[in-house]
């Protein structure tokens, strides 16, 4: 199963620690420049939770933090390794063409 881009962003953010919705949006914006809307973020979280890649923790001041599961960590590692391989190949080809 291939993870969509926004799911990769959410998992990457959660790889840095447990976060609730607002913290996730701010973190993703800071490291990628992508501004997720609340609906997009929770659609991604719903799918990731359904797939067992994240878990919802108990509410902290009406906001539920989310945590990356071991399965989520593995899926993210695989997806990032694949992206790194493609990026490396692309950069080598660009360098050869110049």
């Amino acid at each position: 199963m291939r993870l969509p881009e926004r799911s990769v962003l959410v998992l990457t953010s959660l790889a840095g620690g447990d976060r609730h919705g607002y913290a996730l949006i701010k973190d993703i914006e800071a490291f990628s420049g992508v501004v997720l809307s609340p609906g997009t973020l929770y659609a991604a979280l719903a799918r990731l939770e359904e797939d067992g890649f994240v878990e919802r923790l108990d509410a902290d001041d009406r906001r539920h933090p989310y945590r990356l599961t071991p399965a989520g960590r593995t899926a993210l590692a695989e997806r990032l390794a694949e992206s790194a391989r493609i990026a490396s190949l692309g950069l080598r080809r660009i360098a050869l063409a110049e």
Partner: protein
Amino acid sequence: MDRVLAWLLRLYPRQMRRRYGHEIATLTLDLIRLEGRSPVRLSVSLALDGLGCRIAWLARTRVATATAVTTTVACVALVNMGGASAKQAGPGHRPATAHVRSVRHAPAAGRAAHSRNRKTLRLEGFRESG
């Protein structure tokens, strides 16, 4: 704004609204209060995301239903194929029979019409001998 949010959340699939609706509303209000984001833009975005979620949800349920139906049809087809091959096997197989009591509770006239109390019905299924 709360009313508008409640209405916009209705665009999301019920399961998602029940589990995440409160969090989506809280986050939207946080973004308006703390970030100064435009309520109008957030509302439009919420509406579009809600419709997108609903369509994706419907597509997923349709796919799940189609998979279940296909599997059932495939199973029925396999069972029928098994029955047909058993029929062709011939000597090793004989038709199954079942003894049933019939017209036991029928009125007297009906009982007279059916002189025998026991009937042997030949079923269409087959069972392996031995």
